[in-house]
């Protein structure tokens, strides 16, 4: 059996491909230093926000007046306590898609079979 010539490409494909790939440097502007460190700034900012919100919840929870309201879940409690506009943003930013979860698990070296099995169990 011969190895080659069983698959082919549209005519002129490789010429176009070379041109298309050579345009990548013009299209893709390299990130500036600020852009490179911005994820870390965002990370630090989110830690500060978490610490603030955590501290706020802790202080509020410690107030006797709130004892009767322990049955609230934290999210509805926060939505009433915090600025509603700010809450909408928080909800949007923390929304996770299946794709996010799968990418995270793959990056964490969880096997494909295990992910698929977990998804199966979740759905059935």
């Amino acid at each position, binding site marked *: *059996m011969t190895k080659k010539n*069983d*698959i*082919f490409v549209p005519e002129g494909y490789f010429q176009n*491909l*070379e041109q298309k790939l050579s345009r990548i*440097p013009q299209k893709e502007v390299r990130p500036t230093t600020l852009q490179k460190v911005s994820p870390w700034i965002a990370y630090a900012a989110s830690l500060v926000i978490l610490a603030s919100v955590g501290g706020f919840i802790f202080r509020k929870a410690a107030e006797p007046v709130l004892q009767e309201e322990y049955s609230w879940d934290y999210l509805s409690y926060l939505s009433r306590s915090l600025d509603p506009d700010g809450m909408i943003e928080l909800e949007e930013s923390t929304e996770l898609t299946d794709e996010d979860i*799968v990418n995270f698990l793959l990056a964490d070296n969880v096997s494909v079979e295990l992910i*698929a099995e977990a*998804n199966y169990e979740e759905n059935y």
Partner: protein
Amino acid sequence: MKELEQVFNGIVKEYSERLYWHVRRMVASHEDADDLLQEIFLKIWTALPSFRGEAQLYTWVWRIATNETLNHLRKERVRAALRMQSIDAEMERRVEGDPYFNGTEAQRELMKGLTKLPEKQRQVFVMRWWDELSYEEISAITGTSVGALKASYHIAQEKLKLNLSTLEVSK
């Protein structure tokens, strides 16, 4: 910056066609190979300033390409599993319906058998059989020992032989 662009264009000129054939065998579709190749070269461009020359440029470029391809295949497998579909059936459908295929029936069966191999075995087989890389070159690219590569290739070959002999029997 201009210097990097020159290096990048050199890589495009030198490797784009060869990497295309590798990726095409791995993903079994011209369109997917085309998309993936752009992602690979984007990655090469982004990583180029960090290339320090410890590895040969050839090895470095191939390593990016093979890693990106394996990631792509793993994601496809997961996506198919999440949709409760079989990736093997999807790959077989691609080979069957490939408009850019003009080989014999046996070659088509070989391609189908190839898509059923585990990704790493498929990778080793494609690199050795079609890309005609030496075990030493594959070892430098994948970081796998020559012995393990030979074992992988042998297993893949046996599985594909089985697939082809089934074809002969059914004819």
